[in-house]
């Protein structure tokens, strides 16, 4: 067990890759074996993630040096800098790992019956596993170029999966937009990485943070990194690809796309808090992030109200929720300089932002799965065609209501628990932001009331009278999300103490992240 935990950080990335390379060979033999292998592998990865999370939260940062003679040998003899690729797992990484583990397992369970009868299922599962592995790599690596490589893995497999339904033109178009946007963002990220390499001849995040001097080139790199990752996580005004891609992908892929966007947000946090840290002029960067967040909340929700395509509606709501997280992070970043403000409300804001990330993944995932269930049954996403589905699809209607209430921040669900943290802390920073946030939450409730009313309530339309409930496995997948939503809503204190507060402490503590790498130097 000890050796398993010692190697778990690489196994979490390598096991999905191994299964992904095996999947085409197994799938040629039998489909049942392939499905079982995929599910069992992802369950094993989830178990490893939870074990690693417990270890990291108890024993501090976890170092894994690839290719060295010992996993903890970060810096070889005869030099002062790390040479090899180092996986550095701290609180934020394990938090994101837990999110990705839960969501990927649910997505695979949902796909089992949702993808039945489609062509090209071998390649579908292969790319799904590659996407999961890429997201894990993005959140676990401690090396900038490795981050870029895993960003590319996630982008390419995601684009191919968005274009899975080849008979629809809009899905092809969505995949094209996604790959173009991702390629530009990742190339800009690589350009910024090369700017950093040109000055310090380093690629490791901890070593770079130790050597950072915030020169002009560092400013350029910071600007490019912030813009590129904001584009990847769907910050306004670079959010338009989100509604185009989330709405046309198979929903089990959309929930993974959400986690990919959140991995980009994790990368943004890593860049701002750890790589640059207190060296950058915090107020300006914090306000840039806050401005992107405010625009995201307002434009996202106001665009969501007028949508008649249910998945587009939920996608614009994703933009709005991302704005909430960005506001929390921006406030935490703006007050990172002085410890008193950070103690009074800064850490609370970051707590709210990080807690909102997992809640966002849960309830938006549930809503997307419900939308996919509707599409699975009636074959359309247009709200104008729907009506009275609640008479026949009772579970689905209940799940949609649960997700809608959680997403619009009504007590006692998890959306409220994280939004109240953001409200309270942001109010002490700047009251206007809190007022805008509460207004946006109200409009969000209006959005989902419209969607629920026009889709599920009303008289039972004659053309939908023979619609049955969706299969059991899809219900099971949605139930997992629903159970997590209720638990996180009823016991927010436990979740905060277990995973969220360690993540925040790891995020605001730059010195320990650097010491975990450079500590070997006398």
């Amino acid at each position, binding site marked *: 067990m000890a050796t398993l935990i010692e190697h778990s950080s690489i196994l979490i990335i390598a096991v999905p890759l191994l299964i992904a390379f095996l999947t085409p060979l197994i799938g040629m033999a039998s489909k049942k074996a392939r499905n079982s292998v995929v599910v069992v592998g992802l369950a094993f990865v989830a178990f490893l993630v939870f074990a690693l999370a417990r270890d990291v939260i108890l024993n501090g940062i976890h170092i894994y040096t690839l290719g060295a003679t010992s996993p903890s040998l970060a810096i070889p003899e005869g030099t002062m800098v790390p040479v090899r690729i180092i996986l550095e797992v701290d609180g934020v990484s394990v938090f994101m790992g837990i999110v990705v583990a839960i969501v990927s397992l649910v997505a695979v369970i949902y796909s089992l019956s949702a993808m039945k009868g489609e062509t090209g299922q071998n390649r579908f599962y292969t790319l799904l596993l590659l996407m999961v592995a890429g997201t894990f790599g993005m959140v676990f690596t401690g090396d900038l170029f490795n981050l870029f490589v895993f960003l590319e893995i996630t982008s390419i497999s995601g684009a191919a999966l968005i274009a899975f339904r*080849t008979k629809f033109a809009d899905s092809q178009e969505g995949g094209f937009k996604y790959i173009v946007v991702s390629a*530009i963002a990742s190339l800009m990220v690589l350009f910024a990485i090369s700017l950093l390499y040109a000055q310090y001849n380093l690629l490791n995040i901890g070593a770079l943070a130790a050597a950072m001097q915030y020169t002009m080139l560092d400013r350029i790199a910071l600007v490019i990194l912030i813009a590129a990752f904001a584009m990847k996580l769907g910050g306004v005004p670079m959010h338009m690809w989100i509604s185009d891609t989330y709405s046309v992908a198979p929903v089990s892929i959309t929930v993974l796309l959400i986690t990919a966007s959140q991995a980009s947000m994790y990368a943004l946090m890593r860049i701002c808090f750890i790589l640059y840290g207190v060296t950058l002029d915090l107020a300006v960067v914090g306000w840039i992030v806050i401005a992107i967040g405010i625009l995201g909340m307002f434009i996202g929700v106001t665009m969501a109200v007028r949508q008649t395509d249910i998945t587009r509606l939920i996608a614009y709501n994703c933009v709005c929720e991302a704005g909430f997280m960005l506001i929390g992070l921006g406030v935490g970043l703006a007050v990172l300089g002085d410890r008193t403000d950070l103690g009074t409300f800064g850490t609370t804001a970051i707590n709210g932002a990080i807690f909102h990330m997992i809640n966002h993944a849960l309830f938006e995932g549930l809503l997307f799965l419900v939308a996919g269930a509707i599409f699975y049954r009636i074959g359309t996403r247009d709200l104008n065609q729907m009506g009275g589905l609640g008479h026949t699809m009772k579970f689905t209607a209940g799940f949609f209501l649960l997700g809608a209430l959680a997403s619009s921040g009504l007590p006692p669900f998890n959306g409220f628990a994280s939004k109240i943290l953001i409200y309270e802390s942001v109010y002490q920073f700047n009251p206007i932001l809190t007022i805008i946030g509460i207004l946006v939450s109200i409009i969000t409730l209006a959005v989902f009331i419209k969607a629920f009313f026009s889709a599920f309530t009303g008289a039972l339309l004659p053309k939908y009278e023979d619609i049955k409930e969706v299969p059991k496995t899809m219900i099971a997948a949605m139930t997992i999300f629903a159970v997590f939503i209720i638990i996180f809503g009823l016991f927010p204190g436990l979740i905060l103490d277990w995973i969220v507060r360690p993540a925040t402490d790891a995020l605001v503590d730059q010195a320990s992240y650097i010491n975990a790498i450079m500590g070997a130097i006398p």
Partner: protein
Amino acid sequence: MTETLSGNFPLVAAVVLMGIGLYILIFRRNLIKIVMGITILSSSVNLFLVTLGYRAGGIAPIYTDAPEGPMVLPVVQALTLTNIVIAVATSALILSLVIRIYRHTGSLDSKKSRRMKG
């Protein structure tokens, strides 16, 4: 001035290439030309990366029958190799998507191929 020029000359060249690529991505509506723009963008990054590792009078970092002289930095060459392969993979996927879009909409204009807006 000449010192600073020699100091930032590779960056200027890379920035010019990047500007060309972004110009194509912004102003050219043909989907194939968009793929070209992305390729030019990645080649600008490759150019900048590989010039970062140059040492004055350096030789290739291979010890087999190596002549005298300092070796240029090997890491940036590995990164460039990685980025080249990634660019090839990306353009292959984009081109297949472009073929599909052309089969569906019958045009390569990015203004024509927008099912979804608003």
